[in-house]
């Protein structure tokens, strides 16, 4: 099975670091960005299999990033997991409209995040097979 590529976007360097270690230890390739604009550019260039992004970031928020990803032909179908320290920041409607696979509240468990990434990628593989 080919190594899956994960784009992690967060303005908190410690969060990027810990998520990257967890994913790399479990066989994923990780690319990182510390703001929304950089994350979008990287997503277009690197075409990751999944994006894990923070909700609140400088230059472009997590929501704006997902909107841009959905508008771009190359990234319109990429699954997204959103991390947020603001509960209820994203409505159910927004989540469905922007096809955000999961919303995870901070503080979060890296183990659970890994489990979510695996589930989302598995679901995507099933959908593609169908």
């Amino acid at each position, binding site marked *: 099975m080919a190594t899956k590529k994960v784009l992690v976007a967060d303005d*908190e360097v*410690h*969060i990027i670091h810990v998520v990257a*270690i967890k994913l790399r230890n479990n066989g994923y390739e990780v690319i990182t960005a510390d703001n929304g604009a950089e994350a979008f550019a990287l997503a277009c260039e690197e075409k990751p299999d999944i994006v894990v992004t923070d909700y609140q970031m400088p230059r472009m928020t997590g929501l704006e990033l997902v909107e841009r990803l959905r508008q771009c032909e190359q990234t319109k179908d990429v699954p997204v997991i959103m991390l947020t*320290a603001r509960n209820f920041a994203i409505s159910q409607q927004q989540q469905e409209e922007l096809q955000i696979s999961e919303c995870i509240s*901070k*503080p*979060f468990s890296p*183990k659970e995040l890994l489990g979510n990434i695996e589930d989302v990628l598995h679901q995507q593989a099933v959908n593609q097979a169908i």
Partner: protein
Amino acid sequence: MKLGRNLYAIVTGIVAFSLLAAGLAECQQSGIAAAWQNGRGALRIITYYAGAVGVIWLGWCWVRLARAITSIARRLRTEQAPHFESEANPVINELTGAINYCLEGDSKLIGQLQEQVKDLQIQTQLSERQKRNTEAIIYSLRDAVIVVDEFDRLLMANEAAGRLFNFDFKSARHKAVGELIDASKSEFVDLMRQSRQSKVEAKRCQLEFTDEAGPKTFDCIVSCVHDQNQAVCGLVAVLHDVTREKEISRMKNDFVSHVSHELKTPLASITAYSEMLVDGEADDDQTRKEFYSVIQNQATRLNRLIEDILNISRIESGLTKIEKKPVSLTILIEEQLQMIRNYAEEKNIEVVTQKPIVYDQVYADKDMISQVIVNLLSNAVKYTPSGGTVKVEIVVDEIARVAQVTVTDTGVGIPRDEIEHVFDKFYRVGANKSQAKGTGLGLNLVKQIIEKVHGGRVFVVSEPGVGSTFGFEVPLATRGAVKVV
């Protein structure tokens, strides 16, 4: 009455005199002896005299009765107790007794009516007073109050209502509210219509109107006024401006949201790194050390954040203990520079100070002003690239009796559109956020301490790419207070 009585006496006199004259004429005509012998003649004479006596008696009785009636009328007119003393004559007594009986009944009724009239007058006065009180209350209310009748015509409105709906009450009275109220506020007219139709006691909702000052939110209550048949005979509407309350509520929610975000961010790192350590994801000692260090730093950050929030909250609520005394700004700045110098040296930043020779004592809380100075100095060093300079100056204005402290750096600067927000809670300049860690509360704490506790002012001048000058101004202590702390 008197004229009638006299006229009657004269007529009675004439009739009596005529009868007596007729009796005498009868006697003279046939002689008394002959008249007595002739039974019919005697009867006529007796009849004439008896008639004369009877007419005189009746006349006398009538005069007495007339007097009694006159007296009754007089007493009634003068509102005296209507009781009449009877005369010796039993007929008169009977008559006056009957009249008194009737009049006593009437007088009770009149008395009751008079009392009722008085009660009604008092009640009317009280109602008038109550009406004036209610009007005074309604007119002095800051809430807009509108009262309409069963046909939606304006009965009463206070000044606030006039201002809100742009009408003058005196000229608008009795006009239909639908015509008075602008189409942009038709929601209110609709609400009144709905209230009338639904007949419920009170209908409440929030309405938003926009005027020159911007959008305003009103908490609107419309109550139905019912008549004795429970039909709606009017409506009372009260509109309370809740724009400020809504704004405060929004600010409170924003604050809670910011606080929760700021607290959760370091907590997220602590949780994630500790879980990684527990799960044995840190392979070697160096990684483990690194993880411990992150946990420690994030815990410190969390503590600093909580302290800052509590300090701001205490100052805002006026609960903080303030101990003001004369302190020298030069000494305070020197103390804080000792703490910051190592950090500046690590970053290869030169710190320059300019001390005044003149009197620089300010009347201040030493710990709080120290906190202000250290916040400004650490910010300056944090956002200045290696090789830069941080300059601290104290300027004393003896005429204005103020001391000014400025901290100037050669740092990244602040974009013009963001400069007005730098003292806001949790505000961090977007472009500089990645340059250094911060809670977004340090400068707000500076502002609170200087402006709220010391009655001074804070200011900032900045140019992106050149640097920034942050400063504050506080009143000088009086010269009598010479003890330097």
